[in-house]
């Protein structure tokens, strides 16, 4: 009994060490040993969607604003990166940063709407309209974007190193995702994260503590736009052709489902939700005609029985994944 308790406390101690997070990306390093090119492509797509979901969850889960401009951030990041690679001849790793910044600017625009007092359903509909407007622009600014044919993105290079296989893309993507998720995790665990969650809970009370609420609303949107913009840039080089159809309403529903299935307001949930909902549709593809049914049924089941998403399993069994502002 006694040894048992000692062992469990050792496990408990270990399981609370945040450095254990790195087990996940370190294990991921070995994926290419087992994956064929198709599976490797799906894994790369998961990495893209991890950032898509992390960014979206920050605004709808942590800040609690019904802003649905996520596909706009994603598309703007993808087009900006692609355009800079084609027309300015920038290598991928250089173009990715202005791609993220373009997403951040779009995030800033969305935050201004929220600051003007447009909230809830009004913010939802205006941000949806923003996404559709951007899609219209991708189609009609066809001298630059090549319209519905899509923008052919050249081969990505990183420091002169050509990413000509899925495995090479994987290692670069993994590094980017680890960096961005770590940064976001640091922010959420700091006074910034507290201020953002406090604003969701009670904006007046947050201001009464001397916290400039407007600044933090802008910050959350801008960081969200940046993260999703980076994801867009990665998506562009992964697919090799950026088409307007990739950023429509169906895509938005997928982003939303990833957040909800993973867990609203949970960073670990964002990662889980993105991985699950990228993998499952690919798996169900082998059951033609049934794939939408499987997908829809899974969504309904999780939201009915696990309204806090898959992250609630993690939080229960693995204490390191317990997050400050996400509770079962």
């Amino acid at each position: 009994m006694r040894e048992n308790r000692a062992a469990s406390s050792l496990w408990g101690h270990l399981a609370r060490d945040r450095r254990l997070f790195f087990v996940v990306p370190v294990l991921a390093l070995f994926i290419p040993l087992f994956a064929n090119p198709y599976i490797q492509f799906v894994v790369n797509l998961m990495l893209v969607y991890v950032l898509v979901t992390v960014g979206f969850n920050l605004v709808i889960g942590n800040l609690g604003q019904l802003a649905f401009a996520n596909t706009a951030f994603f598309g703007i990041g993808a087009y900006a990166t692609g355009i800079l690679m084609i027309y300015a001849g920038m290598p991928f790793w250089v173009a990715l940063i202005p791609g993220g910044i373009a997403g951040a600017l779009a995030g800033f625009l969305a935050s201004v709407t929220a600051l003007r007092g447009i909230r809830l359903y009004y913010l939802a509909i205006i941000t949806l309209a923003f996404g559709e407007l951007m899609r219209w622009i991708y189609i009609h600014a066809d001298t630059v974007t090549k319209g519905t044919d899509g923008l052919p993105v050249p081969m990505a290079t990183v420091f002169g190193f050509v990413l000509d296989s899925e495995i090479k893309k994987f290692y670069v993507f993994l590094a980017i995702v680890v960096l961005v998720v770590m940064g976001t995790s640091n922010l959420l665990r700091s006074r910034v994260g507290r201020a953002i969650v406090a604003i969701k809970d009670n904006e007046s009370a947050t201001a009464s503590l001397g916290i400039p609420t407007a600044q933090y609303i802008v910050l959350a949107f801008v960081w969200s736009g940046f993260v999703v913009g980076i994801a867009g840039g990665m998506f562009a080089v992964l697919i090799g052709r950026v088409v307007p159809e990739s950023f429509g309403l169906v895509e938005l529903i997928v982003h939303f489902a990833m957040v909800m299935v993973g867990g609203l307001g949970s960073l670990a949930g964002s990662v889980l939700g993105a991985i699950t909902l990228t993998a499952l549709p690919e798996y169900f593809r082998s059951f033609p005609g049934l794939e939408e049914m499987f997908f829809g049924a899974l969504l309904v089941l999780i939201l009915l029985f696990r309204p806090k998403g898959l992250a609630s399993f993690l939080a229960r069994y693995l204490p390191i994944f317990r997050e400050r502002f996400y509770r079962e």
Partner: protein
Amino acid sequence: MTALLQLASVSVHFAGLKALTDVSLEAKRGEVKAVIGPNGAGKTTLFNVISGYVAATGGAIRFQDQDIHNLTPHEIAAKGVRRTFQNGGLFGEMTALENVLTGLHAQINSGFAGLLFGTKAACAAEREALARARRLLGLMEIGHLADQPAKDLSGGQQRMVEIVRALATDPPLLLLDEPAVGLAPPVRDRLMEIIRRLAGEEGIGILLIEHAIDLVMKGSDVIVVLNSGQKIAEGKPEEIRRNRDVLEAYLGYT
């Protein structure tokens, strides 16, 4: 002693509604001043205008000899005017400790980049704030509640955490909007004791809205009476008890 806060004929007129008319009052360090009055007298509007949530349509508001009239709520709070809310302003999803940490926000001086990369300096600042938050909860004898989600605390405990959070950065002035409402009598008395102690030992100026007259008579140094948006009396508790206008407003004596 010079006044901490001075209101000079402050008015708040919404379209057609005179919420406050020509109200002048002062708050001093170490003094507990209660604001009483019937429902709709303008007590909460008075607090909202001081803390910047409602704009004054006339008059002047000065805090520590600075005009705070046109500042936003967070700017006023940053200057050292802190408040609590009538319906409880705690962040329910956070623990008591995280609530107090949020109150310490301005004292953690880490920049964005430091926080993003989790630098040593940023981590040290965070740990320091954490230690301070625990100490503050301990001082109020609610250290054992630190890791409870705020929404699971009892009404009295929530009120205490909210006061600790408001006082986390040692502000000179605290506005308490009905802190005792809904509390059992022994808890109420204990809360009042703590409020007295904050004024007496820490020298904090306290403005207090309260409905329970017995509590106000016992616990405050000065009472201000509002009725229909106007100040009808100000004085020591025993003076207010004998004031005809006050009796009229409260009991309808003519």
